[in-house]
């Protein structure tokens, strides 16, 4: 259904190694507007590394990135943000010693006409966004250090959706969340999808993935095993891709597929 449109993001033949380890090896993924693509794979498969190349945290050794069909250079996080790419990192990447509002606007602070920080305006907006995401959140004046894991996660998510992103990368966004907050993030993903935002979702929860994602891409040892539309495969088949690298009939094989008949 989306095949004849231009992809929002195309990552082609991406490779990166750290020392001798090929963390990502000749991997290709794509993403269309209003689509959720889940990236799956065992621990250390290279998921985080692949999306960090898109978000500007790492520089690729080889490969190409296209946004709306145009080749782009992303060499730092600022470049990525310039293309409307927002990221929720697995490690959350929040500055512990400043408050929620300061974290939300880190790097893009609102300023008064005199060029000073407009803290009240930032706090007001923070209260609004956090109210939508996590209505129980009250601790706006405290350093993020004092917050619970889930509260910190809401801060990280709020930061990504605060600035109109076109491409959202979520690396295990619900890892530290309770059931209610997880459901809220699920709702949020559906809402963002309706707004036409493309989302890369990394998750180990296969149920969540089938609930939210349009397509899955599975990685193993830095390579892409294959990708499939969620409606064309079963959960067990996807688990087979993750664990064994076995590509079911409903999926398209990648370079990392198991080499058997």
């Amino acid at each position, binding site marked *: 259904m989306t095949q004849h449109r231009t992809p929002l993001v195309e990552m082609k033949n991406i490779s990166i190694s750290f020392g001798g380890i090929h963390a990502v090896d000749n991997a290709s993924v794509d993403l269309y507007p209003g689509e959720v693509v889940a990236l799956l794979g065992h621990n250390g498969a290279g998921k985080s590394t692949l999306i960090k190349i898109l978000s500007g945290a790492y520089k690729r050794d080889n490969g190409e990135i296209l946004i709306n069909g145009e080749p782009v250079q992303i060499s730092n996080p600022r470049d990525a943000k310039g293309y409307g790419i927002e990221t929720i990192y697995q490690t959350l990447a929040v500055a512990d010693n400043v408050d929620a509002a300061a974290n939300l606007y*880190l790097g893009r602070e609102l300023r008064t006409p005199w060029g000073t920080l407009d803290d009240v305006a930032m706090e007001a907006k923070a209260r609004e966004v956090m109210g939508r995401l996590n209505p129980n959140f009250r601790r706006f004046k405290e350093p993020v250090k004092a917050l619970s894991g889930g509260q910190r996660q809401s801060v990280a998510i709020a930061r990504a959706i605060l600035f109109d992103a076109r491409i959202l990368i979520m690396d295990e966004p619900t890892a530290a969340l309770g059931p209610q907050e997880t459901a809220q993030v699920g709702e949020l993903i559906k809402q963002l999808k309706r707004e036409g935002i493309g989302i890369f979702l990394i998750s180990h929860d296969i149920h969540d993935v089938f609930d939210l994602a349009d397509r899955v891409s599975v990685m193993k040892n830095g390579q892409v095993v294959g990708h499939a539309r969620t409606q064309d495969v079963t959960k067990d088949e996807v688990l087979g891709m993750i664990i064994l690298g076995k590509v079911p009939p409903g999926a398209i094989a990648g370079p990392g597929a198991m080499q058997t008949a």
Partner: protein
Amino acid sequence: MANKTIAAPASSTLKTQGTALQRFLQATEIDTRLLGMVGALLLIWIGFEISTGGLFLTPRNLWNLTVQASSVSVMATGMVLVIVTRNIDLSVGSILGFVGMIMAITQARILPPLIGFDNPATWVIALTIGILLGAAIGAFQGMIIAFLSVPAFIVTLGGLLIWRAAAFLVISGATVAPMDTKFRIMGGGADGSIGATASWVVGVIACVAIVLSIVNSRKQRKRFGFPLRPKWAEYFLSITGCVGVLGAVWVLNSYYMPVNLAKRYAELNNIAWPEGGLQIPLGIAVPVLMAVGIAIAMSFLTTRTRFGRYVFAIGGNPEAAELAGIKTRWVTVRIFALMGALCAIAAAISTARLNAATNAQGTLDELYTIAAAVIGGTSLAGGVGTIAGAVIGAIVMQSLQSGMVLLRVDTPLQSIVIGIVLVMAVWLDTVYRGRAK
């Protein structure tokens, strides 16, 4: 009483709970750590007052204390930013020595043949050259730290040796004197103080500024419907601030010109020398005004600007700051450049006060500066620190030194005490942070 006065919208974070003291601290939003430091300072003062038999808390001693603390205080405000970003600068004392020497050579050797002795522009030229040189040295060290990833400890340890040697080499170890008369105003003393009337004016302006800033911040919070501090807390803060400022001015104005200076002053101004002597208040010393001005500017920089926000974010989580798109390396370079410029201002104060530049000037100042910042609550683990704390830390250090001099404690014993205090301050910081977790 709290129930009546707390303006509490539904989302209020100000809860009325705990003891009266806790409620008080919560309502006034006073930094408990800062309060603790002020308390420790008062204890030290009272201790010395008793043990010296009333020599410590005199206008004369306190006036001298403020002047002597100003040079280290200026550098300590910059050291806060350095330490907050998990770096250290061991070269500040040597930079002070080298830059002070260059400023002295500029005004005593280079400029007089060109523009004549006591040219009114001399001090401006010397100070400008000093600040530019200091900033350049700092930026250079910062670039090695940021872009070549050599640890700040090593780079500035190298700087400690290099700039000290440079201060010796530029003039083969000679002492350069005297300084330009206008330049000397930055050192304090008879001509370097602003007198009683101007001091009161400064005090009143400071009070107006305190009240205006409290009113303004309340207005801002009201505009967005945020929880407000209770009215009584605002009054308390305004009144305490004003009483503190005016009290300090009063103390400084109670110190009169020493007799020999007063006599010269009387002669110069054709005043007949009266029977009981002349009592001319010196007022606030210029270096003290400079230190206070710099402390205010640095506080503004750290709390109200983007740069300051980035400094703290980098200190809290360098990786997160980088991922947020902050140019963390350039921020590091700017911090060290700023540190270098502050060293130059401290150098101006200390060469002006000594009326000479020697190649040993500023020796061990790196330790006093770091100690001031750390005693003032800057955490060596990074991410935490205040300018006000560092200034109090500088006053604590100077109080210990002055007090021990009054008590005629031997120099080696003074060093031992300072060393113990420094270690204890860091230990207290560890305890405090352990509890805060």
